[in-house]
């Protein structure tokens, strides 16, 4: 019974719980925290069942409001008329990442947000943001995608500007909101163009009709710009450092998966919607260039930052570059024999990097949050010798920094190695740049570690609360486990996700029938 309605429940449960949260808050603060964590825990379980379901039985199609949930074409219709949720291996891969990260965010918030006011609103927005991301990842409808995109934008900006006592927060939220809204409007414009041409909003139906005419190229340009803006790729990255730096740490953590949901939208559009009809070489190279620019600009800007979270945020921009690079190589080799040879492998590396990146970058933001929570300082020049008091946080920071720089045995190494190897076969120069960026990243994080955690003790430091240590511990365990057993993860969830992206016909026939 429940299995039948999984995709709708995954979106619906956090959304309903979001509006119940202020009511539960009225009773008791502690009860509210347990309620939110419980809901996100149940959601994680639901996503996990959906994952198992999709991996065993193939694409899960759910028709909203139909007599039976799998009925996409009722009584003789040639095209679907209802809103369809379509969960394939790629969608559930993103959904499981989102579910894990938001659960950890909620656990971390317990202690981190304890002294703040307006916590009921905080948790409401957090749950809405989570529901919106699930929506983006599971929907099979372009307009629906736009609606969920806007839901995440509004919730995310509300959270970025959460500390209204700081002018900087409002400044960052304003900037982010302008860019998010503009990006979403570009997406809507593109949806309008596609609807005008092909008379459909369903992604599978559109994909079966798409011709790649001039108008489609314009729509693709708009979608690419809008979604890259959401994903924070250079040159649309201006909002990323501001938003990440000003948001409370658990929100920065969830924002990481939010940018990845934007990236997911981009991949869905490129592979499932346009697919082979694209001029794959050109668009693939556009992605590669965006990726290389993001890697390079991100890391060079990180070098000159003196605020801890801003620095990690620029690191985040450069990590988005790796994902674009690998998928760009995959797209450039689509329809050629090279796809089997190294294109698939490059995509596997990139998609694997998505989940790894969410884990280690989340971990780094949480450690930065712990530093700010315990010392009250944001500037790297004012902190020193934290390892004396914050032993756990120092260890977690080493793990996160090692992973982002791509050192073995952490998960960043596993996915970056796949990217280096496969991209080298495509174009050696790109691989060299990718390795160079990793080395620079390592240099930056060694510098922070040395200046912030080592050295003489300067400040009186609070101890990090238990819920924050627990959240960071879970992430660290995932980081190390994925680093030690990358093959298991790649075989179980990453490779089906890549296959789901590449096999566009499966995505279409799941809705339209053979």
């Amino acid at each position, binding site marked *: 019974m429940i299995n039948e309605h999984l995709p709708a429940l995954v979106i619906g449960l956090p959304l309903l719980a979001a509006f119940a949260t202020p009511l539960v808050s009225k009773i008791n603060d502690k009860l509210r925290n347990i309620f939110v964590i419980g809901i996100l825990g149940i959601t994680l379980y639901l996503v996990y069942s959906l994952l198992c379901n999709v991996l065993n039985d193939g694409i899960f199609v759910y028709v909203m409001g139909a007599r039976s949930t799998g009925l996409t074409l009722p009584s003789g219709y040639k095209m679907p008329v209802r809103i369809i949720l379509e969960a394939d291996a790629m969608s559930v891969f993103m959904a499981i990442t989102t579910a894990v990260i938001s659960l950890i965010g909620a656990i971390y918030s317990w202690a981190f947000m304890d002294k703040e006011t307006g916590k009921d609103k905080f948790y409401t927005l957090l749950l809405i943001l989570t529901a919106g991301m699930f929506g983006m990842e599971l929907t099979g409808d372009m307009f629906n995608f736009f609606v969920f995109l806007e839901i995440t934008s509004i919730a995310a900006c509300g959270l970025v500007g959460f500390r209204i006592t700081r002018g*900087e927060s409002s400044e960052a939220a304003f900037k982010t*909101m302008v860019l998010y809204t503009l990006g979403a409007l570009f997406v809507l414009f593109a*949806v309008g163009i596609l609807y005008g041409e092909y008379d459909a909003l369903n992604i599978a139906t559109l994909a079966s009709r798409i011709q790649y005419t001039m108008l489609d190229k314009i729509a693709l340009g708009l979608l690419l710009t809008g979604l890259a803006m959401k994903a924070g790729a250079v040159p649309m990255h201006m909002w990323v450092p501001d938003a990440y730096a000003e948001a409370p740490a658990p929100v920065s953590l969830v924002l990481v998966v939010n940018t990845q949901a934007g990236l997911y939208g981009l991949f869905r559009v490129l592979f499932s919607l346009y697919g082979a009809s694209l001029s794959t070489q050109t668009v693939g190279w556009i992605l590669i260039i965006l990726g290389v620019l993001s890697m390079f600009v991100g890391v060079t800007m990180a070098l000159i930052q003196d605020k801890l979270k801003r620095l990690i945020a620029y690191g985040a921009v450069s990590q988005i570059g790796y994902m674009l690079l690998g998928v760009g190589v995959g797209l450039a080799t689509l329809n050629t024999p090279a796809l089997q040879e190294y294109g698939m492998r490059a995509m596997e590396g990139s998609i694997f990097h998505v989940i790894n990146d969410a884990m280690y970058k989340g971990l780094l933001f949480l450690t930065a949050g712990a530093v700010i929570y315990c010392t009250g300082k944001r500037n790297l020049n004012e902190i020193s010798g934290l390892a004396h008091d914050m032993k756990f946080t120092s260890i977690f920071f080493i793990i996160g920094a090692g992973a982002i720089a791509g050192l073995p045995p952490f998960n960043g190494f596993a996915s970056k190695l796949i990217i280096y190897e496969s991209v080298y076969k495509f174009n050696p120069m790109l691989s060299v740049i990718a390795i160079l960026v990793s080395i620079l990243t390592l240099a930056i994080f060694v510098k922070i570690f040395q200046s912030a955690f080592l050295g003489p003790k300067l400040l009186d430091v609070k101890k990090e609360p238990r819920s924050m240590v627990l959240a960071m511990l879970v992430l660290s365990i995932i980081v190390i486990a994925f680093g030690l057993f990358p093959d298991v993860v790649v075989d179980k969830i990453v490779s089906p996700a890549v296959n789901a992206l590449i096999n566009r016909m499966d995505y279409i026939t799941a809705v339209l029938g053979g």
Partner: protein
Amino acid sequence: MIDNLPFIACAILVILGLYTLTFKRNLIKIVIGLNLVESGVNLFLITLGYKSNAVAPIYTMAAKEEMVLPTPQALTLTSIVIGLATTALILSFTILIYKHYKTIDASKVRRLRE
């Protein structure tokens, strides 16, 4: 030519909005620019479903068979509602910025960069 007039109007609105977003320094004007882009997109959606001399798509007691396409109207309605929410949120950020900085000049609101 005359049929394409609405599309040209959309293009002009969107370009005006983008111009405002890029070159204006007043935060309120930036919000207005965003709204201009949004109106352009909404107008575009409505134009897609428009048919001259047709009636509203309500079947009960319809005067004739020719109707405009209802889907774009539903889309536009959703988009307007979303636009309202974003505008309200973004204006409230502007108010907060004014409270903290005593200005809404974007070139002076740059504490983050320092």
